């Protein structure tokens, strides 16, 4: 079986920031070059999994900072520093919420930084808030790194080749294709209901009344598609008992397989050590 890679788009610069790439998904306009992008899709999934596990599992500063360092190295290698920025900005509401609530309302903290009227931010709260922020940002960036360097179809195809259930892989792939359509449909329904005087900006009660007019048409519209899709799948032998022929095989060297297993098992060992309290010497 020939080893295939995603076709390179013509004349796309290394950061993928052409006029075309503003319209197309990033992976379409970006050539799959560089050592990080050339990794097997499953390896990149395992890296993201290990990063999330360490960021959340190892408490204090060490876990999230190490993960952020690894992500930065990966982003530089994959040349997607600028592309990560929108993902970083998307965490601002969550980060602001974490910083404000924990700094100003940390239970039991008495070491006040300053007292301004009823507001009394504390050092304990600020430290906890900053650590939680780093964990959330590290997690978000690990997801972004995977998303920006891996085409979902490639990941699904590789996992299926490794024996992951065909049905589960179909569910994942079909969902990824369906979500943009559904979001688009939800937007159309919202606009249509707004044109019929649905209030989406007023008081809570008025907004709450909008749930049914929005969710109803979306749900019923989607459910009407089930029969049609079922027939189409059955007609194409979806339930056939034979193993499907693999169309695409992605490069996967021996050292990469070994490194992947080491990373997977290593991150689980780190998590277990952290839960057992053996990593408390780390800052």
């Amino acid at each position, binding site marked *: 079986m020939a080893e295939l890679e995603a076709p390179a788009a013509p004349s796309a610069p290394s950061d993928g920031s052409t006029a075309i790439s503003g319209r197309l*998904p990033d992976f379409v306009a970006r050539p799959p070059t560089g050592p990080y992008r050339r990794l097997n899709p499953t390896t990149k999934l395992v890296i993201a999994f290990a990063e*999330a596990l360490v960021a*959340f599992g190892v408490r204090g500063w060490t876990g999230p900072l190490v993960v952020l360092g690894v992500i930065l190295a990966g982003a530089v290698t994959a040349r997607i520093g600028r592309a990560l920025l929108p993902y970083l900005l998307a*965490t601002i*509401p*969550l980060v602001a*919420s*974490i910083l*404000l*609530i*924990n700094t100003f*309302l*940390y*239970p*039991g903290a008495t070491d006040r930084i300053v007292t301004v009227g009823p507001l009394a931010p504390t050092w304990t709260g600020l430290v*906890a808030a900053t650590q*939680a922020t780093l*964990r*959330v940002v590290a*997690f*978000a960036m690990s*997801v972004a790194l995977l*998303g920006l360097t891996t085409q*979902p179809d490639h990941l699904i195809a590789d996992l299926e080749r490794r024996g992951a259930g065909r*049905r*589960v892989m*179909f*569910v*994942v792939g*079909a*969902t*990824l294709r*369906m*979500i943009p*359509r*559904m*979001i688009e*449909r*939800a937007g159309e329904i*919202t606009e249509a209901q707004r044109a019929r005087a649905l209030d*989406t900006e007023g008081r*809570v009660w008025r*907004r*709450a009344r*909008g*749930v*049914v007019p*929005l*969710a109803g048409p*979306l*749900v*019923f519209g*989607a*459910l009407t*598609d*089930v029969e049609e*899709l079922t027939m189409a*799948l*059955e007609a194409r032998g*979806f339930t056939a008992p034979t193993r499907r022929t693999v169309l695409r095989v992605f490069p996967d060297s021996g050292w990469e397989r070994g490194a992947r297993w080491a990373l997977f098992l290593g991150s689980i060992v780190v998590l277990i050590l952290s839960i057992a309290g053996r990593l408390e010497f780390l800052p």
Partner: protein
Amino acid sequence: MDWLSRQFSTRVIVLMPIAIAINIAVGYTVQTVLKLPIYMDSIGTILVGVLAGPIAGALTGILSNLIWQYAPGIGGGTIGPFAVTAGVIGLLAGLWGYLGVYRPRPASGTQLYGAALVGVAIILVLAWRIYTSPVYGGDPSTGGYGSGVYLVIVGIGVVAALAVGGFIILRRDAAGAWVAVAGAVTGIVAAIVSAPIAAYLFGGVTGSGVDLIVAALRQGGADVFNASLGQGFFSDPIDKTITSFVVYIVLASLSTRVLARFPLGERIAGSAAAY
């Protein structure tokens, strides 16, 4: 293993991505467009659980959160780790499906008003349990939430009780009482499962509208875990009860012919022809 493979017929496999997309699209719209302190991201999970069984429901819930976390464009945030909660919601939905909770039960006279009373009583008992929970007890200066929280609990309990009683009587359907109980129980379990995830991974804050409730509870002196649990006990039973009624209305609106094609369809269809 036959019972397991029956849960994953082609029709269920086709329904699952649609259910996941419904979860994400409705949840995304309700949380970002309507900006309400509820989630509404379990309609598809409960739908699949009730129609196909607990394992299919749990898988739908887990995949919903994982895909939402990693989905290009709308991903990120804190939704991924709550896949555990979503899985439990799907599991419970499958149990309700097996028990035939979502089967319409046309009633009249004493039976109808009895069911309405039972539904109202169950909601009030649940509200009373929350009202008297040690989580909310005590003086604010010693870690309690303050007296304002009791007014909110009473208000929510009365509104929920009126909504359930009204639904049962207006639709002349005793199933409303069962659906309310299923939703409330699912919400309480979801709150208990979610609290440690929110507290341990995110410091009790998730960046959505419910953070206001967390802030109010923290202001009252609650610690990180209790603030998350307290917020969950506010939001989740309301959210899951509303979601359960939405799913019930969806199921009651589908024809018996369509319902019967799913693994648990016969347990739901019942006397749906009356609708």
